[in-house]
């Protein structure tokens, strides 16, 4: 018989997995990021740089923004609030983010 997980950890993981897809989806839709990475020069910037720096990558900036936001939410949301969350949100929220993503990216396929 394994020991039950600490309630603080259960609460934090639950909230993390709910907040992460929402923040990531909102971030990439609005192109909000903590930073841009320029792979040709290997440097991070908090704002866009001239084209001479090469292609800009916003992907890492979205991931870090979503990770930090979800980790903070997991740390500060009280356990009793997290305990009252309906368990179904844990798959409905990421499913909704997935469907939104797939629908949004059809823009690539429209002439």
């Amino acid at each position, binding site marked *: 018989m*394994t020991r*039950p*997980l600490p309630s603080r950890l*259960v609460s934090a*993981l*639950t909230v*993390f*997995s*709910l907040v*992460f*897809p929402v923040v*990531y*989806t909102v971030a*990439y839709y609005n192109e909000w990021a903590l930073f841009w*990475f320029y*792979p*040709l020069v290997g440097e991070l910037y908090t704002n866009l740089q001239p084209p001479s720096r*090469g*292609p800009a*990558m916003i*992907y*890492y900036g*979205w*991931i870090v923004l*979503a990770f930090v936001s*979800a980790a903070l939410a997991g740390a500060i949301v009280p356990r009793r609030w997290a305990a009252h969350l*309906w*368990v*179904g949100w*844990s*798959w409905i929220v*990421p*499913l909704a*983010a*997935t469907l939104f*993503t*797939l629908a949004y*990216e*059809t*823009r*690539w*396929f429209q002439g």
Partner: protein
Amino acid sequence: MISAALLIIHGLASIVLIGAITHQAIMVWPAKHAEQPQAFFTRLRSLPQPSIYANTVVILYAANFFLGAFLYTSYRVDVRPYLEDTGLFLAAGAFETKEHIAVLGLGLLPAYWLFWKEPSRAGSVTARSYITLLLAFFVWWNFIIGHVLNNIRGLGL
């Protein structure tokens, strides 16, 4: 050369991941009727400790994700401009969905791990099934797109 080696490792690791998550997805797929105890799928679905897969899947998924994220710089610098210049927008768009789906899967891992380690709350078993199926879909989606894109010249797309 290092990128090519890492890409091969990424591909191999994804095959191991796809095996683990597919097996687990088959286990949580609801049975429609009473199954024969000796039937292939019955035996496939009955692991003595299914939660042991959870750690393996989390580690493999995270390793695959970070390998892919590292290789993404090569894609962004060398591959994507080629796709756009040659009008292969279908391929470029498919890769965009791959990168987003990979991140959404990463965010799903804590809940996935939690529900396999502690399926005690009301409705957790159902949620665990849906999360596992969703993660399996993510892995298959990314595997297929990654391989089609990797072989795009050979496939003549």
